[in-house]
């Protein structure tokens, strides 16, 4: 839109020539100057400039729709009026159907909490045929940290949809719809997205997953302002991709420990600032989502995954259409399972905080989180009936965690990893 040529806008010849003579070729060139500056540059009267700009603006301006039209289009053309159901009843209800199309959904949480598990399940759900509640489409999975495990994917599929996966060849076909990309830098990522954009509709891609966005951005060498700017550009691009293709885009984000960030206030609040209570030295460490506040503004839905007192929660930290609910969940062989579909309504900014309650262990932090999650599984309050399954649950968990994250083999099987050059 912005690059439309002025000489193709049916402006009166005289003024069109003047624009061209001063090297104002595209609409963007003209709109990047104030009318006063244009008047000086083109050496014409204000009235002429205003009328020319009004004409150019009308051409470049986005089309007008009504909210009703938007809704009707989505109900008519899109599966579930533009939602990808996650099969987690409570979450789907809160999100009015599931992960929404056309916007960015972020999953943020400490390592090992279940973000990749969630992504694997979503990829599967998108590839399933429509009569099974899926989108019957291809999935592009941007696997920055090499966490994708086809074996785990099939396991989730077999356990969640046994009737489909026991059919001969189904597993391979479903897995075959998921294309894995492994860019090593933001610029490679941008390039692959550009190539995807071109063939997006043709290839029937119905879901894009980026796991993880943080790893992609934080891996860049330069830091500070230029990194923020690069991120800003990419965010804008991904958002427009989401809108243009009307697919859901799910991105995962890491956490970092807060460095006094949370006590940020406005200047008018400074007068009534309460005394900063020092957190007693517990292991209830407060974490903050990485990538900064611009990123937090840019995502439409933010799902926070955290662990408190040994119980994992998935929280709707930012969602324009959902109440601030927290759902307790567990990870089983069939992926993420909610323990309670009603959810707990959280008050205040609590919905945004990320907890990672760890136990005292003399291990380094990364492993600490993993092991504490495992051990807390058995030590936390459980009903008698679930005690038995807990033990096996822990063992199963250990098995797949080894495969997916902690240096184990990533089974490639017959799923060919598409090299970037072939895109």
């Amino acid at each position: 839109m912005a690059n439309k040529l002025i000489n193709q806008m049916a402006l009166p010849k005289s003024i069109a020539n003047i624009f061209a003579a001063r090297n104002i070729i595209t609409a963007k060139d003209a709109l990047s100057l104030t009318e006063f500056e244009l008047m000086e540059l083109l050496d014409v009267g204000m009235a002429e400039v205003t009328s020319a700009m009004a004409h150019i603006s009308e051409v470049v301006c986005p089309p007008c729709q009504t909210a009703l039209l938007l809704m009707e289009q989505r109900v008519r053309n899109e599966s579930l009026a533009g939602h990808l159901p996650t099969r987690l009843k409570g979450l789907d209800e809160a999100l009015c159907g599931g992960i929404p199309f056309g916007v960015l959904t972020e999953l943020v949480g400490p390592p090992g909490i279940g973000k990749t598990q969630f992504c694997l399940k979503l990829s599967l759900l998108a590839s399933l045929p429509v009569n099974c509640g899926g989108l019957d489409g291809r999935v592009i999975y941007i696997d920055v940290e090499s966490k994708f495990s086809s074996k785990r994917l099939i396991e989730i599929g077999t356990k969640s949809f046994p009737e489909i996966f026991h059919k001969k060849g189904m597993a391979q076909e479903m897995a075959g719809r998921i294309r894995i990309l492994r860019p090593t830098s933001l610029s490679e990522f941008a390039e692959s997205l550009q190539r995807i954009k071109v063939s997006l509709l043709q290839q029937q891609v119905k879901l894009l997953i980026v796991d993880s966005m943080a790893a992609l951005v934080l891996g860049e060498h330069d830091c500070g302002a230029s990194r923020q700017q690069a991120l800003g550009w990419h965010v804008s691009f991904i958002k427009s991709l989401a809108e243009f293709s009307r697919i859901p885009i799910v991105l995962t984000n890491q956490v970092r420990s807060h460095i006094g960030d949370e006590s940020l206030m406005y200047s008018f609040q400074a007068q009534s600032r309460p005394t900063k209570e020092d957190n007693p030295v517990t292991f209830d460490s407060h974490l903050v989502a990485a990538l900064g506040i611009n990123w937090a503004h840019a995502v439409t839905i933010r799902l926070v995954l955290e662990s408190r007192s040994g119980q994992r929660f998935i929280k709707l930290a930012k969602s324009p259409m959902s109440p601030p609910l927290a759902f307790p969940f567990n990870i089983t062989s069939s992926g993420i399972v909610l323990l309670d579909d009603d959810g707990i309504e959280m008050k205040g900014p609590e919905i945004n905080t990320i907890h990672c309650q760890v136990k005292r262990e003399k291990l380094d932090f990364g492993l600490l989180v993993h092991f504490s999650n495992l051990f807390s599984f058995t030590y936390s309050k459980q009903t008698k009936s679930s005690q038995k399954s807990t033990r096996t649950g822990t063992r199963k968990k250990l098995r797949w965690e080894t495969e997916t994250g902690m240096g184990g083999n990533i089974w490639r099987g017959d799923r060919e990893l598409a090299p970037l050059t072939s895109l």
Partner: protein
Amino acid sequence: MFNEERFSSLITTSCVDLDNILGGGINCKEVTEIGGVPGIGKTQIGIQLAVNVQIPLEYGGLGGKAIYIDTEGSFMVERVLQIAEACIEDMSEYSHHFHKDNQAYGVKMHPNSILENIFYFRVCSYTEQIALVNYLDKFVTEHKDVKIIIIDSVTFHFRQDFDDMALRTRLLGEMSLKLMKLARNFCLAVVMLNQVTTKHIEGSFQLTLALGDSWSHSCTNRIILYWNGNERHAYIDKSPSLKSASAPYSVTSRGIRNSTSSSKRIKMV
């Protein structure tokens, strides 16, 4: 009890406390900026206003239409429907309360007609944003019943892509002048939603609205939404006519409403 003249240029926010500090509601003929951290409720207020501007005259509203300029893709149709339905329910309840005997006052609005009266523009670059603001003059001339223009958010496209900050300031300045002119000439309200950024002031980092110091002159009124403990509050940061005050509000499934801890009775508009 209704003084139609007084109410005819104010758009309620559906939260009594917030309306009170605003002197009755969002004012037509003025540009109001509303800023806050992600998740505080900026888009919620934007959508609530787009619905409330349509409240018919007999209920103390303006019976107008809305223009919603979406620069970030935060406009979720599902949410607009929720808020529209709740608004109609509230009007029905009010009508039932005050006109128990008279059936003729039944509310005939349907949520779909509320959605139909919101003109939606999706802007994907700062060029489109400037072009749209230029075009609005013609659009509003052709749709004289538009009474509010909401820009959500005015910041997004101006935060990236700009190496020349001076140019950004000039373009923003021109855009805001055009918006002020629109507000005055067509007697409508312009509401701009803004993001926040951190700034190093007096040795510590503080939150402040984005787009720089010069931008703070671009609006008539400036409201900051923030968390105060567990409650959402709105603070009048700048206004020629309103006192600096703070009011609690809440975001519910029905839209923006009074804060639950507020002990005031709900005043029927």
